[in-house]
């Protein structure tokens, strides 16, 4: 049985990875999960300089989901390279660094800095609500998506994953723009923008007012978008949004994802990622798939 998948020339032992921002750089969950069992670890978004993030409360629970407004707190690329990459190198897994920024230059600086580092892929988060380009978030405008992809590609030594926002009318436009800009891989979906009001305090549940909704609640929207994008572009897709079990992971793969990321589920099941690895194998045995590649986009 072959579970290896290929993302722009990088071979992963299996399609299961962590979703950026939910797994730190792996250290905290390494108590629960042997990171070497995972296809890849995707790190929390890192910027050119340290970011303090948003005020608290940053977290709110929603039905079958949660909202976060972390605001991309991160220690900056220098400390990240010094501490987090060496930590991850101890494991037999691929390293995917999620990159965030406020301007094009911010992104490019991080990407350039990572060119000399021993990491496997870069995931460019153009769907963070803090990041504006001429008043419009990078990820909600096809021209901006194409441009930032092109810019980043100029500096990148590793293949580039563009991470798309679901808060758009037509996700395939964004996917095509990223493809046109030279993206190697797409990942989707980031969180859906939501809001919660505490009716007893008569105040917003999050200090930031709005936050990103994640978890099983958003899975049907994510599956739909993965399916649409898989049928609109040629690039491999990393699917995510509400994956909690191997069955969920298989659903994304059948819809067209080459790999899957598990985010919020780590918070209620710290071993969700390894369980997904095992469960996908069980599914392949049950339905007689020799290679996971036979499953990708099977349902049309």
């Amino acid at each position, binding site marked *: 049985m072959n579970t290896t998948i290929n993302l722009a020339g990088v071979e992963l032992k299996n399609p299961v990875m962590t979703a950026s921002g939910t797994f730190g750089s792996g250290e905290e969950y390494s108590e629960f999960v042997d990171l070497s069992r995972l296809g890849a670890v995707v790190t929390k978004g890192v910027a050119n300089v340290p970011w303090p993030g948003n005020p608290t409360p*940053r977290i709110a*629970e929603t039905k079958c989901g949660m909202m976060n407004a972390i605001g991309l707190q991160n220690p900056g690329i220098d400390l990240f390279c010094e501490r987090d990459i060496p930590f991850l190198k101890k494991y037999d897994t691929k390293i995917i660094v999620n990159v965030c920024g406020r301007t094009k230059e911010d992104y490019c600086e991080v990407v350039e800095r990572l060119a000399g580092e021993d990491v496997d892929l870069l995931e460019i988060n153009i769907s963070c609500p803090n990041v504006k380009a001429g008043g419009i978030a990078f990820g909600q405008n096809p021209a901006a998506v194409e441009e930032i992809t092109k810019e980043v590609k100029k500096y990148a030594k590793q293949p580039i994953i563009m991470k798309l926002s679901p808060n758009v009318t037509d996700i395939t436009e964004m996917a095509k723009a990223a493809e046109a800009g030279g993206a190697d891989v797409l990942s989707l979906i980031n969180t859906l923008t939501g809001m919660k009001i505490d009716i*007893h305090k008569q105040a917003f549940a999050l200090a930031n007012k709005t936050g990103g909704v994640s978890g099983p609640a958003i899975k049907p929207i994510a599956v739909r978008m993965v399916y649409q994008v898989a049928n609109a572009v040629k690039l491999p897709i990393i699917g995510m949004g509400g994956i909690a079990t191997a069955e969920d992971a298989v659903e994304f793969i059948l819809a067209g994802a080459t790999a899957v990321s598990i985010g919020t589920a780590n918070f209620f099941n710290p071993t969700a990622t390894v369980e997904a690895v095992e469960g996908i194998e069980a599914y392949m045995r049950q339905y007689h798939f020799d290679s996971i590649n036979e499953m990708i986009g099977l349902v049309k």
Partner: protein
Amino acid sequence: MAGKYKESVTVVSQESIAEEIYSLWLQTADIAEHAVPGQFISMYTNDGSRLLPRPISICEIDRAKGQLRVVYRVTGPDTGTEQFAALKQGETIEVLGPLGNGFPLEAGKGRKAFLIGGGIGVPPILELAKQLDAEKQIVVGYRDTQFLLDEFGQNGAVFVATEDGSAGTKGNVMDAVAANELTADIIYACGPTPMLRAIKAYAQEHDIECYLSLEEKMACGVGACLGCVCQSRDKDAHSNVHNKRVCKDGPVFLATEVEL
């Protein structure tokens, strides 16, 4: 660093010990063995629609029996804590722990200490009182109904404050400290932020070593998501900004280290 465990634990017993306050003993495989006072556990409901854990302090540890006690408030109808209150003996729930760093016991050894708990911050003070080797002055504040007072009496001198004046000093814990003319060389405290802020000011004024247990909304409980940060005086080694994670770097902090 001691390990953390995700366990399906069995309810040994559950009782209501005051209005909306419940006491729950849990049989754990590993958590009780490793827990120290001031740590907490993440409790998950059995309802698939509620994903996030409720961080609840460890109130008592019975290492011999492998049991933990938590004491919690039901915050309202249709909440996760209401679902906890419905748990019956023999039923199971998922918990993760022990989490965070406890109160530093060595620091208080042989000294004159305040152990201060306010409201639903009272429970973790009990195991602290049991394990701390010090001259213990336990100061506990309640809105109205009191709980755990018998247990506290067995572990030190107890001073009570109630907001409505129904018992002890009318007012808050600092009013009880003043009314009883208490002094101390070291402070341990857990409770609502305004109380902690007052204690921090008091400690600063009197130049007393002071440890505070903070509260923040959490998602992972293990330091990965950066959801639960508080502001720190110094640039934090992990975050590289002035943020510390309550779940992992706390919940207990040296008062001078954190902004409240």
